[in-house]
């Protein structure tokens, strides 16, 4: 597609998404709107991993750490302040700060590959265990009891900035969540098209080469990791608004889920993980109403199948099919610009530069 065509497609997609966002509360019942808000908040979590893993090549096994920290910070601050404005600000800042510190620890220690996975996983497990152990009376921050395993059930909903009088109903939270997803999606596309984003992608493609070109890869990795952490924090805030915060947010379950969504949706794309997150959550919720079938069997089977047969994920395959159809119609297909084949251990990252947005050279 030419840059012009791409722009047209983007604008159409944007308008269509805005239309969907406004139609959803009109046609769906309240429960479905609340569920849709949960799905969308999880899609933001998936998008955050798509950024740091799909674009940056950093496989974090602990994305749920930032998700949970965002939720807890929001709940504790909102209960104490009675106003959600600063709670939201802090609930984005704290996970971002935590991601920055953890990133500094990891990237300046030159830890990569599976070792990075272990460290992020371990950090999440520590948070999980610590928050689980806060059931006693001693663990109260201001007015908020952390509550251990039970979590903080009465998380206050969002209100308009500095206006405690306007506690938002579920439909309004849907608009905020869906709007944020849209914003983050286009924001991420923009980010990856900037000079910063291109260096991040080139680190994924070949870290050594990027470094030899004179870039301090540690800083770029830290940057994308922190942005991903902040985004996961936002997902945590929205989740806290729809459900409530509890240590499960740090659990292996969410860590696993988010990786599965990204894998199934299409690693290396931004839209794929969003689609994967929403589709798989709907599937699991559906499976919960079927008696006698354990949802884990289906989820596990899907994951194995995708790794073996569709390692790139749904979206790239769909795009490939679409492109082929176009090419069949066009008489002389333009030769796609392919990057050189990557080394074997990088194969988990999609080979097509699906993330290249904006104008191509």
């Amino acid at each position: 597609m030419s840059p012009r065509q791409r722009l047209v497609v983007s604008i159409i997609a944007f308008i269509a998404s805005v239309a969907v966002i406004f139609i959803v509360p009109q046609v769906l019942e309240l429960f479905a709107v609340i569920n849709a808000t949960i799905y969308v908040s999880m899609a933001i979590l998936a998008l955050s991993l798509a950024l740091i893993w799909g674009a940056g090549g950093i496989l974090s096994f602990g994305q749920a750490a930032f998700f949970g920290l965002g939720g807890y910070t929001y709940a504790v601050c909102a209960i104490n302040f009675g106003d959600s404005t600063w709670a939201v600000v802090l609930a984005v800042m704290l996970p971002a700060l935590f991601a920055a510190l953890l990133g500094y620890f990891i990237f300046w220690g030159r830890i990569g590959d599976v070792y990075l996975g272990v460290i992020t996983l371990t950090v999440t497990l520590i948070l999980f265990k610590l928050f689980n152990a806060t059931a006693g009376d001693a663990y109260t921050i201001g007015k908020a009891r952390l509550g251990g395993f039970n979590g903080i059930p009465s998380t206050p909903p969002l209100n308009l900035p500095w206006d405690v009088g306007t506690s938002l109903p579920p439909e309004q939270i849907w608009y905020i969540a869906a709007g944020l997803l849209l914003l983050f999606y286009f924001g991420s596309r923009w980010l990856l098209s900037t000079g910063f984003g291109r260096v991040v992608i080139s680190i994924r493609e070949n870290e050594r080469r990027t470094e030899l070109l004179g870039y301090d890869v540690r800083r770029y990795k830290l940057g994308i990791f922190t942005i991903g952490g902040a985004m996961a924090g936002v997902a945590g805030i929205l989740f806290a608004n729809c459900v409530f915060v509890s240590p499960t947010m740090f659990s292996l379950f969410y860590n696993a889920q988010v990786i599965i969504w990204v894998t199934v949706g299409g690693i290396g794309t931004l839209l794929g993980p969003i689609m994967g997150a929403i589709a798989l959550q709907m599937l699991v919720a559906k499976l919960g109403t079927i008696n006698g079938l354990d949802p884990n069997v289906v989820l596990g089977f899907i994951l194995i199948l995708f790794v073996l047969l569709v390692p790139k994920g749904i979206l790239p395959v769909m795009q490939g099919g679409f492109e082929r159809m176009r090419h069949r119609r066009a008489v002389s297909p333009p030769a796609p610009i392919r990057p050189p084949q990557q080394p074997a251990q990088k194969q988990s990252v999609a080979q097509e530069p699906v993330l290249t947005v904006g104008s191509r050279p």
Partner: protein
Amino acid sequence: MDLVVVVLLQVVASVASLVLISIGLAVIFGMMRVINLAHGEFIMLGGYAVIYATRWGVNLWIAMLIVAPLFVGVIGIIVERAVIRFLYGRMIDTMLATWGLSLLLIGAATMIFGNVTTGVSAPLGGITIGQYQTSLYELVLAVIVVVVLVGLMAVLKLTKAGLIARATMQNPAMAASLGISTSTVYSVTFGAGAALSGLAGALIAPLSGVLPTMGISYVAKAFITVISGGAAIISGTLSASTLLGSLNTLATFAATPVIGEVALLFAAIILLRVLPQGITGRFFRRAL
């Protein structure tokens, strides 16, 4: 004085159990650079093998030491043939696929066995040390772990099969050009790793009970231990287990079980920051 002995015994027991739950994963990781995230479910299957074998009248020790490892070993070979062999050299993809396998096995076990904690009673009863009593079985467990480690070492060092395995591990291309079927070696290695996981599950069953989701509580710990230990199978697992296990036990005695767990995890993070390739990435490099 008695307390010191008892604490020491407890340290030994917990190091042994850490070695036990990690060694299967370590063999597969060390030999094949494959992280098997279905490791916890292999442990779970080992546990169920013991439960069902004893229900059908098999002697408990035979069930634990023979039936369970055989059963899980066979499952391991099937898994290797059906899934893993398509993914060699793609570490992240194997992790994801085995993660899927883990979910699949948990779900299947839940549907077949029900989500109920079952178990067998620990044999041998207790022994008295001064004014303390401890389970004799825990001590026997430590002895079994030592036997397994020595046996593993002997197989790798002294037998032809061990030589072939080590050669394949060091340079698969060269081994293949010398006429070794690396595919068979991988298959057998994965089966052996799985069998060790099955043995772990079998030996743990009398202590902690068996439940379809039990693997989750072991896989993260085993994963962390193996990676902290680094590439060398035996010395890596042993050194990491000793360090993390003693820390865990001592912190548990001094404070609470939560602090014990957190101390273990925290130590692993610091360890990996200081030694990014694990303990044996720096020390005992030529060891197994």
